């Protein structure tokens, strides 16, 4: 039973990170029907910027807590600028292009960002400075750390904030209107360009937060870390029904739990035939099975006929 609880905790932590990244995908998709493949790279840049800024300030003698906050602020701002820039350079000019065209520019931007990061930060693994005290707790036979608790809390708060923004503010209303019908929304006086830019900026800020969480959790970062993380998060967004905010959150948490439990029990389930290195298969298998029965995700609305 303690393994079960332990894996649930691990899954929740990983899942909250997935959920935050998935929100970035789903917001952009909901509004413009585009898979922003470069979003994983934005997350990666968020982690690496934090490492540089916080690491530098800590070395300069600043208290860890302030250095961490400064790192967080700078990295969120950098990622917001990056998200805005991505939209301006790679997506806005292609809004009326064939549907696969922005997918290829997204992939191009993803390659560009990865290599820029490699030129700036090098190809080695970087250690993330310990921003949070390493306190451990025990509950019912399972161990968890302060970092894990904070990750879950911060992501829950952030998601609450996002829901408030989307369902209770004017900008949120404009976003929902745009996602339903851009042409009509613009006739009603919604500035479509600003709404789309806002979606990219907010998504990137969430991505930066997620990046910092990944850094504090795994204490390590690398210029290629965004790729698999982005892929998993995107899977989570699709699992929940892409374009749906609650779906992305639940999809992320669900994916984290499935992976953790899968990794914990796959050996027992298959009599030792498959080991925990098959962990990644679980995410995709569950996705395929879910989509077989619910072709537009767990919480998604029926998609249109855009093949």
């Amino acid at each position, binding site marked *: 039973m303690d393994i079960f609880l332990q894996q649930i905790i691990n899954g929740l932590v990983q899942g909250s990170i997935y959920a935050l990244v998935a929100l970035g995908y789903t917001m952009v998709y909901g509004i413009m029907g585009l898979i922003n493949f470069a979003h994983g790279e934005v997350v990666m840049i968020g982690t690496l910027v934090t490492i540089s800024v916080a690491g530098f300030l800590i070395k300069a003698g600043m208290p860890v807590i302030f250095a961490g906050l400064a790192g967080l602020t700078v990295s969120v701002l950098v990622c917001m600028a990056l998200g805005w820039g991505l939209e301006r350079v790679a997506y806005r000019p292609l809004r009326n292009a064939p549907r696969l065209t922005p997918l290829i520019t997204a992939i191009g931007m993803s390659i560009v960002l990865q290599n820029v990061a490699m030129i700036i930060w090098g190809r080695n693994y970087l250690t993330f400075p310990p921003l949070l005290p390493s306190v451990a707790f025990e509950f019912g036979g399972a161990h968890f750390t302060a970092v894990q608790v904070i990750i879950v809390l911060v992501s829950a708060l952030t998601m609450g904030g996002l829901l408030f923004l989307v369902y209770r503010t004017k900008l949120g209303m404009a976003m929902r209107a745009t996602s339903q019908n851009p042409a009509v929304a613009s006739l009603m006086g919604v500035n479509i360009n600003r709404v789309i830019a806002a979606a990219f900026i907010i998504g990137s800020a969430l991505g930066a937060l997620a990046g910092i969480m990944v850094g504090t959790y795994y204490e390590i970062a690398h210029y290629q870390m965004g790729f698999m993380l982005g892929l998993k998060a995107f899977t989570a967004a699709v699992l929940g029904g892409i374009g749906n905010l609650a779906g992305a959150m639940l999809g992320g948490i669900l994916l984290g739990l499935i992976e953790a439990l899968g990794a914990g029990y796959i050996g027992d389930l298959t009599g030792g*035939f498959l080991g925990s*290195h098959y962990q990644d298969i679980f995410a995709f298998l569950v996705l395929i099975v879910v989509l077989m029965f619910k072709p*537009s995700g767990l919480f998604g609305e029926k998609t249109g006929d855009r093949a």
Partner: protein
Amino acid sequence: MSKWLNPRSAFGITLIVVALLALPFVAAMGGQAWVRILNFAILYVFLALGLNIVVGYAGLLDLGYIAFYAVGAYTYALLASPHFGLHWPFWVILPIGALVACFFGVILGSPTLKLRGDYLAIVTLGFGEIVRIFMNNLNAPINITNGAQGITLIDPVAIGDFKFSTTSQILGISMSGPQKYYYLLLALVILVIIINLRLQNSRVGRAWQAIREDEIAAKAVGINTRNLKLLAFAMGASFGGVAGGVFSAMQGFVSPESFSLIESIMILAMVVLGGMGHIPGVILGAVLLSILPEALRYGVGPIQMAVFGKMLVDPESLRMLIFGLALVLVMRFKPAGLWPSPERKRELSDAGAGNG
């Protein structure tokens, strides 16, 4: 067929044929490495044309195409290497590889037929990853794929005593291994182009296009969309399987590393960048995107040395950086691809807001 007899086009065709036949000898002047690059370019043309059936004709976004290539490559590797001690001949394995890949295509296709657009994309992507993860890990408890180390010492293509891997004299001309593979690949790819051309205007090809444009309307006029979509998956997969077999024989070595998601994405980029659904465009896209990174590999380092006198930026990342920028810029200024089909170009300029 009468336009083929026109003296001007006959001249053009002769010129192309001569150029294609002479190409490996021209490339060899720059070293055998360039012949290999050329071979890979043809292999990518092969793959891109296979994916073009799925994405370009039938409009099904497949992000896991490399899985079929991998299946073909491993089929060849297992049946013609010391790993299991099997050394079956090339012709026997190639159709088997195509069949196995086709089978996988149907396995992937059948549960995903209901899905549309991006949902299909992510499922195919997941499928590709699953195949790769299995290849990476199927070395225990029974060693099937030899895990991450891959399979080595795969038999080269051979016809009787004539081996494709070594240099030999043909009609007094010395031909290296890669050069011989070039002609083999060229023959195969011409076959694929012919199949593609015939498919395009066939009943099946037109049905695919109908499904791509509007699936519900296609169903309404009596097209069996389920079977035709499956057929598109199966055919695309078989081409991938054959290409994988040739890759395996040519390299003599396969490992899961060659079949990562980025490869699937690259092949899709070739199809889209060239001009989806248009055979000359797809060929152009595949040749450009496979040669460009290699040309940059040879260009970026020396140019930096010449201009700045030292290596300012790691050439490997600089070359990928330029490659990524090229993808963005081409799509930015040529949204329908470099060489789209005339009808598609017209649709785009008419409609303004086109969707595929």
